[in-house]
């Protein structure tokens, strides 16, 4: 009988691994292996067609003493500041606004969410004309108000904010649906009890809704950070980093170093830095109680 049980267990294990094999193999080759490969390659001087040459931390030293690298890191952080909090605040606000029943509420929700089913590349192509110099819709608006046209994409001080506005417009509706599901999972009893105790709209929000949404907020912040780091499409379409790298973000820099300069060593070092950033912003996923809510 015990031998039988052991054989059954072995059969189950074999079956388990066989079923996992195809998906697992792909994940190992295209997610796990590349992480370690980036770490490894970042220690080499390695350009396309050349033999890799071990230089230890050389790539990192070069990057850290390179002003462009620091500019890119600054841009990435600034862009994150201009996108993560504003798009979350907007998303929460929209969620509160559309958390009602009504004939047209579905359509209103969809108007906020539809940019999420459009490729960034299409959005950037359209917004380019909004931002275009003089003839663009934004500059035309300024001119009609008697102001100077700004040509926002060519100015180093306005190019990132301009992209951030476009990004927040795209992202707010996406974050909205997570806040909406968070709000709707808060028990009606709690808010009703607060109402009986005389809490008004703002007080209910401040002392009941917002604290109870904390796990959702933490989860949404991870998504918001990850999404803003993983996008380079708009930079490729709108500016290619211009003017003078004022709009170069980390992922675009990785792309440029790897595929324009063919410098695989340096772009691997940049990939490692990106992975470290993603690890930091994903930490809440592991401590969040909310994991259960969103993953089940």
């Amino acid at each position, binding site marked *: 009988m015990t031998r039988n049980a052991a054989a059954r267990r072995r059969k189950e294990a074999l079956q388990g691994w066989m079923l996992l094999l195809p998906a697992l193999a792909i994940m190992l080759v295209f*997610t796990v292996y*590349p992480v370690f490969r980036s770490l490894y390659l970042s220690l080499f001087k390695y350009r396309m067609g050349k033999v890799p040459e071990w230089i230890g931390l050389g790539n990192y030293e070069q990057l850290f003493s390179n002003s462009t690298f620091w500019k890119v890191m600054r841009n990435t952080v600034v862009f994150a500041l201009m996108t993560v909090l504003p798009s979350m605040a907007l998303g929460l606000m929209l969620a509160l606004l559309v958390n009602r029943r009504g004939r047209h509420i579905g359509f209103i929700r969809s108007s906020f*969410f539809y940019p999420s089913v459009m*490729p960034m590349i*299409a959005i950037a192509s359209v917004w*380019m004309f909004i931002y275009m110099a003089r003839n663009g819709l934004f500059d035309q608006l300024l001119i009609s108000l008697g102001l100077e046209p700004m040509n926002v994409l060519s100015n180093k001080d306005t190019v990132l904010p301009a992209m951030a506005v476009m990004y927040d417009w795209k992202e707010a509706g996406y974050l909205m649906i997570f806040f909406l599901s968070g709000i709707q999972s808060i028990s009606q009893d709690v808010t009703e009890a607060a109402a009986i105790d005389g809490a008004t709209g703002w007080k209910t929000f401040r002392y009941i809704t917002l604290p109870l949404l904390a796990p959702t907020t933490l989860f949404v912040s991870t998504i918001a950070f990850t999404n803003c780091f993983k996008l380079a499409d708009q930079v490729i379409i709108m500016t290619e980093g211009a003017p003078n790298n004022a709009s170069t973000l980390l992922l675009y820099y*990785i792309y440029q170093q790897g595929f324009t300069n063919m410098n695989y060593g340096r772009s691997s070092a940049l990939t490692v830095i990106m992975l470290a950033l993603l690890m930091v912003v994903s930490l809440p996923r592991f401590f969040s109680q909310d994991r259960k809510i969103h*993953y089940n």
Partner: protein
Amino acid sequence: MNRQKTVSALLTALSVLLALIWLAPLYWLVMTALTKTTFNMSFFPSSPFTFENIQYVWHAVPFGQYYLNTIILVVVTFLIQFLTSTMAAYSLAFLNFRGKALVIVVIFMQIIIPNDVLIIPNYLTLSEIGLIDTKFGIMIPFLGSAMAIFLLRQHFKTVPRAFGEAAKIDGANLWQIIWRVYMPCAKPAYMSFAVISVSYHWNNYLWPLIVTRSPQNRPLTVGLAIFAKSKEADMQWSNVCAATLIIILPLLLAFFIMQRHFMNSFVSAGIKE
């Protein structure tokens, strides 16, 4: 009571106003694509209605080919993901074996690290196995989807074990149990996963850009970007809008028809692959 009514009306007005602001770029895009080109860009295009821009772009760019490529990519990716994820999810939900925890770690890694971040090492791998400029090369990193596995596993677990055991006693083999018992029960999860997979791959840009070299393999997004950046498109907002409309239309229509379903799918998956 009256005050409450006023507040409610104000909130409705505010949400309608914001919705209009959000819809403005789409309105401009559609109107510009479907009216005659004018010398100056206008927010309310008032020139006559025309299909000329669409026709021009359709012939200037091999959009027919790109459409075919994108459809092949989206459908084949989904079908393979469907198989690999179902198998993996069943294994993780019901079978006991050592090393399972490690698999969960791998799945979490994929959830945390977006594929686009790994373009350099994955490009090197792809060129070593000779898949540069192939459709399969675009698809292969996505054929094991952590998001789908997670979603399906959670759904499978809610199906009472007795169902599976009853089928087993009736002599059903593993495939029949998965196919006849668990898949029908997890239909909503499959629908969510389909929505997310299709929207992701219809819209994906950076990876296909890097992998493809020829029109025979380029998807719509890459085609659009090449057109939008070409000399012919310079200052040609009507044409760029027409091209953009061509590539976003199917997904956007599907979304507006099944709004609720789309939004729920994104919530239940909690992540974009």
